[in-house]
């Protein structure tokens, strides 16, 4: 009896040690988002969604012989490039992360990419940086994003105008990286289609008065005014001013202008206007809602789906590469994101890991129908809507 007891204790001990060994082999993933700053209200849900994907991977028990993925959060501030660079530097040198999920805003993402990711060879997957500039940024194949570039949106907007047969427009954009990038993309596509832009005038957000901008745009003329700004500040001011003076009565709206508050304020005055907004629909989106609801996370918030997908792709790429290293992520991310292979929805990460383990192929669909094109960015689908009787009405998806 005593022998038996000793034996079982010994077995338990060995098992315990074995278990502890498995635990110590962990790989850290940096989650760098603007936890303070202009989008601080969105980032907690984004980080939760990313961590949800990592937890799912860990819980499945199928990941790389018991390697655990541990998220490490850092603050990108969204606007302060120096602070974001310092935070990312800390993630790499002190925490030793092998990959970064982030950053969020386009400006800081570019800074982290060139100052930290490139010199250290750390791959980054951003859920929300949309500036077209990042497409051509030097990245040595290290930069990916699960949100579409605004270059694509510019193409979509120009396409809508071509379908409607409108060839002369005036453009106004919010004077920052987002507005400038989107308006450049739109104008080059529109002019390539044979359209004419009478005047492209920037506007500053939150200013007291927009009469000057509207005066100039009205003088230049055009069939409608393209507004590439924010619905809760300058973009709305421009529309209001244009409506009041009768300068324009139809508008085409960029994604920053999509909000219910805009309709509530301007009501039926916007009838006949139209625009586009990134939108995902289908089984992946619904499945993500189930998964996030079950985990008690708000998965309906902006860019939560993209965040989940970004983190999931990092883990799957590691699995496909057979090791939890930066190289594995860099080399395999495109392969797991795109066809061929078995389609993977949110909540099926365990199954995906098993397929990869068995040497199969997967095509990660995720919450946003991930399809990475060009240098590794989402193709993105946009919802083309018109405003009828003071409500958004879907025309089609492009």
């Amino acid at each position: 009896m005593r022998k038996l007891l000793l034996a079982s204790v010994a077995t338990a001990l060995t098992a315990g040690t074995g278990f502890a060994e498995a635990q110590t082999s962990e790989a850290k993933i940096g989650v760098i988002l603007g936890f303070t700053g202009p989008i601080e209200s969105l980032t907690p849900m984004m980080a939760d969604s990313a961590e949800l994907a990592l937890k799912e991977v860990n819980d499945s028990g199928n990941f790389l012989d018991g390697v655990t993925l541990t998220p490490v959060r850092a603050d990108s501030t969204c606007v302060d490039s120096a602070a974001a660079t310092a935070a990312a530097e800390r993630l790499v040198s002190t925490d030793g992360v092998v990959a970064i999920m982030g950053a969020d805003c386009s400006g800081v993402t570019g800074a982290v990419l060139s100052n930290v990711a490139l010199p250290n060879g750390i791959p980054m997957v951003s859920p929300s940086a949309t500036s077209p500039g990042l497409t051509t940024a030097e990245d040595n194949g290290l930069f990916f994003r699960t949100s579409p570039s605004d270059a694509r949106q510019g193409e979509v907007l120009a396409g809508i105008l071509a379908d409607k047969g409108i060839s002369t427009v005036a453009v106004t954009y919010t004077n920052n990286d987002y507005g400038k990038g989107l308006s450049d993309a739109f104008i080059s596509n529109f002019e390539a289609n044979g359209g004419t832009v009478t005047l492209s005038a920037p506007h500053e957000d939150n200013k007291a008065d927009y009469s000057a901008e509207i005066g100039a745009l009205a003088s230049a003329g055009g069939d409608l005014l393209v507004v590439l700004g924010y619905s809760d500040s300058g973009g709305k001011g421009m529309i209001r001013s244009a409506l009041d003076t009768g300068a324009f009565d139809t508008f085409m709206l960029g994604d920053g202008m999509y909000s219910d508050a805009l309709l509530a304020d301007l009501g039926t005055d916007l009838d006949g206007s139209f625009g586009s907004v990134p939108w995902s629909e289908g089984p992946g989106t619904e499945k993500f809602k189930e998964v996030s609801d079950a985990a008690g996370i708000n998965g309906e918030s902006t860019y939560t789906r993209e965040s989940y997908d970004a983190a999931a792709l990092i883990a799957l790429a590691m699995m496909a590469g057979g090791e939890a290293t930066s190289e594995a992520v860099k080399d395999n991310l495109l392969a797991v994101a795109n066809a061929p292979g078995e389609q993977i929805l949110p909540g099926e990460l365990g199954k995906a890991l098993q397929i990869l383990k068995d040497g199969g192929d997967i095509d990660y669909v995720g919450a946003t129908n991930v399809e990475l094109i060009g240098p590794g960015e989402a193709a993105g689908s946009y919802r083309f809507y018109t405003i009828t009787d003071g409500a958004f009405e879907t025309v089609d998806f492009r």
Partner: protein
Amino acid sequence: MEFLNGLVALANFVLIPAVAYGAQLALGALGVTLIYGILRFSNFAHGDTMAFGTMCTILATWWLQSLGVSLGPLPTALLAIPFGIAGCAALILLTDRVVYRFYRRQKVKPMIMVIVSMGVMFIYNGVTRFIIGTEDQNFADGERFLIGAREFKALTGLDEGLAIRTTQAITVVTALIVVAALFWFLNRTRTGKSMRAYSDNEDLALLSGINPERVVMVTWLIVAALATIAGVLYGLDKSFKPFTYFQLLLPIFAAAIVGGLGSPLGAIAGGFVIAFSEVGITYAWKKVLGYWLPDTLAPDGLVQLMSTDYKFAVSFVILLIVLLFRPTGLFKGKSV
């Protein structure tokens, strides 16, 4: 006809917006200039004082609307202005009691008062956001237009529309009434005269038995009224958002300084100079010239002196020129 079309286009896009914006700036600048003249410091909290007064007015407007009170075609907010002024005055007098009086007794330098007012600015900032939030509040009701662009075209048969918003008309009328009342008060009443005396020479004013605390209190009350009225008019015309009011501080100060700090007449002139330079200099004349010039001379380009990106540069260049060549401002104020 061609000439009229051009004139209407100019009025619609330059004259009317600039007059309304100028009147709003003038009312704001009057408050700044009064504080500078009588209390002798630049009050950085003025933009947020306007925001707070407007917020009180909005809350009162909502209350009145819930009671079913309405002014018909005019915005209900006009009825609520007295409540707003009362709320704003209460806050300002409390601030003066708790903060400014302490520093006034110490006879600190004006620069220290400026920094103190920045502290007050941040507190007002927070209080306003805490109570009403950071979002846009649209509280205008009643008729939006006196005459809309489309109606005008149908009425006159011209190609160009002319829109006059009710709020623009109210702004100009109210500004005229308020300015007239203020000048009457400063020049004709005993309290007004004592305020001017205190502003001209504090020591002499004290010797002749003027009670300084009373002068200060009356000044703050007038400032509360001016700030609330300016804020409400601006909010009715555009919309209320605390951050925009904070940004209004810049053009308001430019207006007050261009006109001459301490000079009420200057504040009004400064408001219009800044408004017209922001709207006028960056205007693209293509349309108007197209109507006015014979077809052969009609311009192809936009005929824009400067891109609208530079509109703030324009007002600050004017500010610099005035400070360089007339440091006391257009209307002999105090030199800065």
